[in-house]
């Protein structure tokens, strides 16, 4: 078992496609939001929408950390390099996200700024050890999946007395965003059920989503990222909806439990507290939706350590529909700039930058869409 190919077998995909088609009631619509950008990417990459009956729709959610980070935060990172001359370390995804005036970290780097792409927080720590006379800042972004790695780096830095290392913390929280979406979905979008986060849930467990079922009466199925995982989860959601049930179910049991990873959770809560509110592109200010670094680690908090000049969040580029796309209200093809001025090589909005962004997924896979992926590749999807 290698846990990849097994979950891409075409004969199982055909079986599931049939099961979903039989189960879906032609009299109703099923609007299912995949919260995670990882799911969005997989849905497009494997042509899963094409295997669904007409009345099963995927709404793409805000689960793309790069996409939801407001521009003001990118500007802060740029200022850390420009005004404070730090070595700024970050994951590759962040480099091309436009800030004010379409400035990006990549541009700053090309102009001589010391911006370094790292694969792991372990690399950022190493850079700090190797450059004791320089300030090294790790620009941390990501959901609960990624926060534990940052927590480890902070506790390691404190233990080692690595004084030149700090973190610019932009970690955001998934359940709070779901609440934000549902609480505001009195608007045009209606969501019948959720494909719940896979790797976020590996850390926090499935329990934190139970409020969605309890308070908002929507079913949630925690879904793995492989194509068969997604299809099986759709099948489970359709069944719940047909039976009028709204529960949290777990399809991804090989990794996710109700309680999650207690060791990682303990590390995270040792280092981080919850912010009162945090701004999300598309959702606005969402209460208790992001992490902040606790006092005890304040010496390693870039927001305490460096004054940055806040000019608030500049408005999104004119015509860019990212905010509505992130709420599932619009599709990338509704944006006038899609493919006309905005493409992965020249992204105008963040949703075109990350491969998890809905715009990038549409661009990359939709144009090459074939009627049936399964029929053409019998071995694996």
């Amino acid at each position: 078992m290698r846990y990849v190919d097994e979950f891409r077998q075409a004969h199982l995909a055909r079986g599931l496609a049939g099961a979903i088609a039989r189960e879906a009631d032609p009299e109703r619509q099923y609007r299912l939001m995949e919260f995670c950008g990882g799911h969005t990417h997989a849905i497009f990459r494997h042509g899963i929408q094409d295997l669904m009956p007409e009345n099963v729709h995927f709404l793409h959610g805000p689960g793309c950390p790069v996409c939801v980070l407001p521009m003001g935060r990118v500007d802060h990172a740029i200022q850390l390099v420009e005004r404070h001359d730090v070595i700024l370390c970050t994951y590759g995804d962040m480099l091309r996200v436009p800030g004010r005036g379409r400035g990006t970290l990549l541009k700053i780097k090309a102009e001589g700024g010391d911006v370094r792409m790292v694969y792991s927080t372990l690399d950022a720590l190493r850079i700090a050890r190797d450059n004791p006379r320089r300030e090294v800042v790790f620009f941390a972004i990501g959901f609960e999946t990624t926060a534990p790695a940052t927590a480890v780096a902070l506790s390691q830095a404190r233990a080692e007395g690595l004084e030149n290392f700090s973190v610019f913390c932009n970690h955001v929280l998934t359940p709070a965003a779901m609440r934000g979406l549902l609480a505001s979905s009195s608007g045009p979008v209606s969501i019948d059920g959720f494909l719940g986060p896979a790797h976020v849930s590996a850390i926090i467990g499935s329990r934190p989503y139970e409020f969605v079922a309890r308070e908002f009466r929507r079913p949630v199925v925690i879904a793995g990222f492989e194509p068969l995982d997604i299809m099986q989860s759709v099948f489970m959601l359709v069944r719940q909806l047909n039976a009028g049930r709204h529960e949290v179910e777990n399809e991804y049991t090989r990794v996710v439990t109700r309680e999650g990873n207690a060791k990682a959770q303990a590390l995270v809560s040792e280092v981080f507290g919850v912010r009162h509110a945090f701004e999300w592109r598309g959702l606005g200010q969402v209460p208790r939706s992001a992490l902040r670094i606790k006092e005890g680690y304040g010496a390693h908090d870039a927001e305490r350590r460096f004054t940055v000049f806040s000019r608030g969040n500049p408005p999104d580029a004119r015509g860019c529909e990212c905010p509505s796309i992130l709420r599932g209200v619009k599709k990338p093809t509704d944006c006038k700039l899609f493919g006309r001025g905005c493409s992965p090589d020249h992204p105008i909005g963040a949703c075109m930058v990350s491969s998890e962004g809905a715009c990038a997924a549409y661009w990359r896979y939709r144009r090459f869409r074939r009627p049936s992926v399964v029929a053409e590749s019998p071995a694996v999807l």
Partner: protein
Amino acid sequence: MCLALPARVVTMDGNGMATVSLGGITKEISMILVENVEAGDFVLVHAGYALARISQEEARRTLSLMAEAGLSESGAL
């Protein structure tokens, strides 16, 4: 960003580190976030850290649920 890949633990190297094999490529990763993992187990790797142990038993169970769903009814009549 939440991408995490299954990898097989080749050796536990002490010091909270392990060598894993990721589709043939070996890599040194941190095991500090997981417990009860042994050489031979599969873990989910994200940004240089193992996030969880992957349960083979559960994986098999899920695959058979998938197969079962595919058979539902198509066998009837």
